[in-house]
């Protein structure tokens, strides 16, 4: 191996963000006052606009990752805005006496819904006591008796007359199974045919005439009964109506006065009055035995009895009583269709489903009307018909309750068509970005109804608000969570972890849930150590314990390498073999792992075989990387000769899928090593993608990749030569664990930033890569020269084979 060439190793200071305890001037974070939400001006501005704007359709969609605090911030802004809004109206459903299947919705001033219900209950209770008393009164009984007597006396007088005249005419009226039989008598006995024959013709004629006359009078008296009964009924009804009217008018007067300014209530009370008078008899039903209950009648809740249900007031929306202010902020965690728009319930009666206006139940839209409704986009979209119903309500600006079963004709029963309730609210949907983009692309209504997008940042640039504001935010999380305050070293640790979460030394994470989890775990360990303050040790312990808990798979992988089941060299050199690095993300954990990548080359027709792709284990991005490196090879070497190469590339001992192009630089270097027959230093690993010009491009997961190789090297013993080649563009993303930084500081490990493939060649082979001179050729002895010579040699051989073939054909 020649002298060390290639890029200079990075100093330890470049391996992570430089946040130190000395940067913080507080003793504990308890001294820091919360500086509000930082880094979310764009999203919060959109939510505030949605909260304060009065125009319709300016509903908002809050985009952001779970754990970003989007819901908490949304709730806080809306709650603040709601306090400045007027309390919305109460809504009740009442019976429509003319068309019971179309219940009437009545709007009432805030807080009066319940009062109206109570007033109606009191009215029914009052009438339940007053009306029976009215009908039991001496006045009513006397008037009723007068009607009864006049009716019966009239009839009885007529019947008496018929019977009296019959007796006077010697005619008997007998009651038989077939009605009345009218027959002549003699000496008080029914006249037999024999007796009749003994009479003279005149006498017989006189008896027959008397019988006929009596029959006609009796028939007339009996026929008059139905008409007389009808008249009697009418008189009784008129009397009842007059009595009920008096009672109802007195009882309802107070209610009318209490709700005098509300036209809809007055109209309803008119209908109630008419119905109460028409149906006053329902107040006269007596209850015997157990049904009467153990309480005196005066304390019985009459309004709860089924026969008075039609006068119930079904309060759909009731604002709190006096003293409460502001509009509602409702969060519906289970936004099913019914939970959004309300539902009509049914009861089973004798095997049939029945319903009425008291079975109308409100939905979240009713409760949030006049204020704000927060919904989870995923939940709304996954509930059948919920999204459709929400859009319809927002578009029509009214809440119409309907049943999905009825809509799809799944049930056939009598249902209701309640008055729709006018809708005026702001809906805030919270969801991941993918839902917003899909809805915007696929649902034309979406952008019309949700005109505002509140896009939450996942991170904040360090320079934007400075460490003080971020530290104050961390202090706030600890305070809100009831945790111990942090000392400055602990704060520096948290900053370090925050950088690590973003994979960027220039950015801090706004993943509040993750940060909160870290603080709570640190608080736990601080408590376990009996400390009043969270120190750096507690944060470090929290991090290491978390890694340990999630480390089983990582340890299994490392163990397989250390026991040489998986073959990874960390020293020596070999042609066509290189240590590539990959990242595995399983569940909530991510870790890096080295993989052996090998390349073999020979004379061919310009084909590079990607074994991963051939076996369908390589993904599309990996294939793209392969084609790019072929492009580099074709343009960088022996451009005046046909590409006469056959090469194969493979990740050794890899049996799962491979994707991404972060190994394309490693693949290209393995090929160059094989072509140039130059061994690669196995104490180094490499990650980075390459473009067609040989520039090295940034990749993801750089920290985990470095640590994955470092841990293997450390387990085998650090030599000082070992290290990792990374794209120079990834240096700003470095946020390495302390163990790596300490090894670098001690000169036991190296991190080498590459800008081009030449950097990689020199660092890995120890030979100069070589640049074309003015004569167009690479310098003698350089890796590029060797590579090009090899390719030219392949081309010459191929050409020679071509000639031999033609000659052979000619000889034939």
């Amino acid at each position: 191996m020649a002298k060390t060439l290639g890029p200079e190793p990075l100093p330890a200071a470049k391996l992570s963000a430089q946040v130190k305890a000395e940067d913080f001037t507080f003793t504990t974070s308890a001294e820091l006052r919360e500086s509000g939400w930082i880094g979310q001006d764009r999203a919060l501005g959109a939510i505030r606009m949605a909260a304060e704007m009065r125009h319709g359709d300016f509903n908002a969609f809050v985009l952001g990752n779970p754990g970003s605090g989007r819901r908490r911030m949304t709730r806080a802004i809306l709650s603040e805005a709601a306090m400045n809004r007027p309390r919305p109206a109460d809504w009740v459903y009442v019976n429509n006496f003319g068309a019971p299947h179309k219940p009437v919705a009545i709007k009432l001033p805030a807080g009066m819904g319940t009062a109206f219900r109570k007033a109606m209950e009191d009215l029914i209770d009052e009438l339940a006591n007053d009306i029976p008393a009215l009908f039991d009164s001496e006045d009513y009984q006397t008037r009723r008796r007068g009607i009864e007597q006049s009716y019966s006396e009239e009839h009885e007088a007529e019947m008496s007359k018929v019977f009296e005249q019959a007796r006077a005419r010697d005619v008997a009226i007998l009651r038989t199974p077939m009605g009345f039989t009218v027959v002549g008598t003699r000496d008080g006995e029914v006249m037999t045919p024999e007796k009749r024959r003994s009479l003279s013709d005149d006498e017989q004629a006189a008896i027959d005439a008397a019988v006929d006359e009596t029959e006609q009078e009796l028939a007339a008296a009996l026929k008059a009964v139905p008409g007389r009964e009808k008249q009697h009924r009418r008189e009784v009804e008129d009397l009842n109506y007059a009595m009920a009217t008096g009672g109802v008018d007195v009882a309802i007067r107070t209610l009318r006065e209490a709700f005098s300014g509300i036209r809809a209530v007055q109209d309803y009370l008119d209908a109630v009055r008419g119905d109460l008078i028409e149906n006053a008899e329902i107040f006269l039903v007596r209850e015997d035995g157990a049904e009467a209950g153990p309480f005196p009648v005066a304390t019985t809740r009459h309004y709860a009895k089924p026969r008075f249900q039609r006068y119930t007031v079904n309060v759909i929306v009731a604002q709190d009583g006096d003293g409460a202010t502001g509009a509602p902020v409702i969060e519906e965690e289970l936004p099913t269709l019914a939970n959004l728009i309300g539902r009509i319930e049914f009861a089973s009666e004798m095997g049939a489903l029945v319903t009425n206006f008291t079975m109308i139940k409100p939905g979240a839209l009713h409760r949030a009307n006049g204020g704000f409704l927060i919904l989870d986009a995923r939940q709304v979209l996954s509930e059948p018909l919920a999204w459709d119903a929400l859009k319809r309500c927002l578009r029509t600006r009214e809440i119409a309750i309907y049943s999905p079963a009825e809509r799809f004709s799944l049930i056939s029963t009598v249902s209701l068509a309640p008055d729709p309730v006018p809708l005026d609210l702001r809906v805030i949907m919270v969801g991941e970005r993918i839902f917003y983009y899909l809805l915007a692309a696929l649902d034309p209504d979406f952008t019309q109804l949700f005109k505002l997008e509140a896009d939450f940042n996942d991170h904040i640039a360090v320079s934007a608000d400075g460490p003080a504001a971020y530290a104050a935010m961390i202090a706030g999380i600890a305070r809100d969570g009831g945790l111990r305050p942090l000392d400055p070293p602990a704060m520096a640790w948290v900053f370090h972890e925050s950088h690590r979460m973003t994979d960027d030394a220039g950015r801090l994470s706004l993943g509040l849930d993750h940060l909160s989890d870290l603080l709570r775990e640190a608080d736990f360990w601080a408590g376990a150590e009996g400390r009043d303050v969270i120190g750096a040790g507690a944060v470090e312990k929290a991090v290491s314990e978390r890694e340990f808990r999630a480390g089983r798979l990582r340890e299994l992988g490392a163990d397989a390498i250390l026991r040489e089941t998986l073959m990874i060299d960390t020293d020596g050199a070999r042609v066509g073999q290189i240590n590539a690095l990959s990242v595995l993300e399983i569940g909530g954990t991510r870790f890096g792992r080295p993989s052996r990548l090998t390349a073999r080359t020979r004379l061919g027709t310009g084909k590079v075989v990607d074994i991963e792709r051939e076996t369908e284990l390589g993904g599309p991005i990996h294939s793209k990387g392969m084609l790019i490196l072929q492009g580099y090879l074709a343009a960088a070497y022996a451009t005046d000769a046909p590409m006469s190469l056959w090469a194969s590339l493979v990740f050794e001992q890899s049996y799962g899928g491979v994707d991404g192009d972060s190994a394309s630089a490693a693949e290209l270097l393995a090929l160059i090593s094989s072509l140039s027959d130059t061994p690669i230093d196995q104490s180094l690993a490499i990650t980075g993608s390459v473009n067609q010009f040989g520039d090295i491009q940034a990749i993801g997961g750089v920290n985990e990749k470095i640590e994955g190789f470092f841990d293997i090297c450390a387990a085998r013993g650090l030599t000082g030569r070992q290290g990792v080649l990374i794209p120079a563009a990834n240096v700003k993303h470095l946020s390495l664990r302390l163990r790596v930084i300490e090894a670098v500081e001690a000169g036991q490990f190296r991190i080498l930033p590459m800008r081009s493939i030449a950097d990689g060649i020199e660092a890995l082979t120890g030979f100069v890569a070589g640049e074309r001179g003015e004569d167009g050729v690479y310098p003698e002895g350089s890796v590029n020269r060797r590579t090009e010579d090899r390719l030219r040699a392949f081309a010459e051989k191929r050409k020679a084979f071509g000639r031999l073939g033609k000659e052979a054909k000619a000889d034939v």
Partner: protein
Amino acid sequence: MSETASPHARVILSATCYADAEAALHLAVLLARTAGAGLHGILVSDETILSAAAHPHARAVSFSGQAVTQVTVETMHAAFRADARLFQKRLTEAAQKAVLETSFSAIRGRMMAVLARSAEARDIIVIGFRRSIKDGDALVLVLGDRDAGHDQLAFALQLSALTRKRLIVFATPRREGEVVAILARQRGNLHEYRPYLGTANLLRELERMSPAAVIIATGQEEVPPVGALINAARCPVVLTGPAADGV
């Protein structure tokens, strides 16, 4: 009044047609339950009616006032049989519902003669009658000169409460004070005293009234002729105490 201690053996509901029996069935059941007595039904195939049916110049009118033709002895016999079956059926159903012992007989003869043969001491006799108008105004108790403190008045008051009818009590002026005192103690005080001034006066009074039922609880000597009583009152008549014994 418990069944074992009951002073009444049976309540006999008798009628010459189902319509009359059915009109008094509810009253008879109430009487039987109140008195703790059994219920016996008698449909009397009245010979007078059969004789009238045989008369070629007799006329028939239905209960609703329509003329009925083709009334013969045979059709009347058939009508009696049909009414007897219906009467028995309804009587049994009503008795079962009220958990009463029951029996039934269909007898040919004259009403009062049949009752005289069938009734025993301590029986209560109810003679059915279908009123032309549906509901009567009040229950009428004819006490005559009997002691107002006697069980009959209490019994009638019980019936009055069960049927939710006011009670009009005919008693001799001699008994007025005690009757009025008892009636005044009743809830609502809707009941009424009227003087009993002999049978002729009673019949005249009843002709002008429209009672739901008349209970005759006089001594035997004060009982008016039952036929005349029914013609005057045109409602079910109950004979109890000495009045029933004198049938």
